[in-house]
């Protein structure tokens, strides 16, 4: 599955570079439609698993540990990267605080007067999403379902939710959605903290 995703992604990038602009513009628009179809399909699967919500409720507030881990882990990663590159730790944490939401993180940093950090944040969060798609099957198999949510960050409520749902169970899928929603709400707040 990871290989198929990688191949399709590369084909898409090459396609985007060389296909006529009209077609690539159409496919660019179509991606949000594909996402909605995929999530509709995931919604049906979740509804069929009636016990899912009871299991999620049993976890209670402990569900918040997942976004907590995602945020602490990402900020730690950003700080380490900044340390290796001998730039400001704070700026590194702001770059990583995008949690995979590349469009927003790039814009916030660029608007804050740091276009270089904005571009790095944009690119690194695009890479993060790509890595997430490829890593999910391995994480679900060799670590646990919760770990498969970790790289997704804010995207676990939309683009990567379908992938998580395929490789884990209904309970993890609901937790992934909650994690994505919390991370999405916190990305602007976190980035402001480190600007």
């Amino acid at each position, binding site marked *: 599955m990871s290989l198929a995703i990688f191949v399709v992604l590369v084909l898409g990038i090459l*396609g985007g570079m060389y296909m006529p602009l009209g077609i690539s513009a159409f496919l660019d628009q179509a991606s949000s439609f594909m996402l909605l179809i995929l999530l509709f399909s995931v919604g049906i699967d979740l509804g069929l698993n009636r016990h899912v919500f009871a299991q999620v409720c049993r976890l209670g507030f402990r569900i918040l540990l997942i976004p907590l881990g995602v945020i602490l*882990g990402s900020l730690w990663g950003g700080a380490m990267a900044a340390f290796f590159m001998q730039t400001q730790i704070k700026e590194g944490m702001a*770059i990583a605080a995008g949690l995979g939401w590349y469009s927003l993180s790039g814009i916030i940093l660029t608007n804050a007067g740091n276009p270089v950090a904005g571009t790095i944040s944009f690119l690194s969060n695009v890479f993060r999403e790509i890595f997430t798609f490829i890593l999910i099957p391995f994480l679900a198999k060799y670590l646990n379902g919760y770990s498969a949510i*970790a790289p997704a960050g804010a995207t676990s409520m939309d683009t990567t939710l379908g992938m998580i749902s395929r490789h884990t169970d209904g309970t993890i899928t609901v937790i992934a959605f909650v994690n994505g929603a919390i991370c999405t709400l916190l990305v602007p707040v976190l980035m402001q903290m480190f600007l």
Partner: protein
Amino acid sequence: MWKIFLVLTVGFFIGFHKLIRGKLIQLNSRMQILWLLLLIFCMGVSIGRNGAVLESLPSLGGKALLFSVLAVAGSILFVFVLSKLFLEKGEKK
């Protein structure tokens, strides 16, 4: 964002009230792979057609890669440890 909530909720109710059955349920599951791959292809097209992204890759791509690798590694590490400590214990009664 509200569209995501809407399709998930509508899908959920269709599943919950068993409005589709048997073969359609299987078909729905199988089609997810197709939707997923189409989505990823379209996302690839978005990256490929965006000139600014490709132009900035040579100069900033390496730094961005380091950030993404470490942020992903950190997230997996923290979530894995927290889930082992506080979540999985509850499952095994």
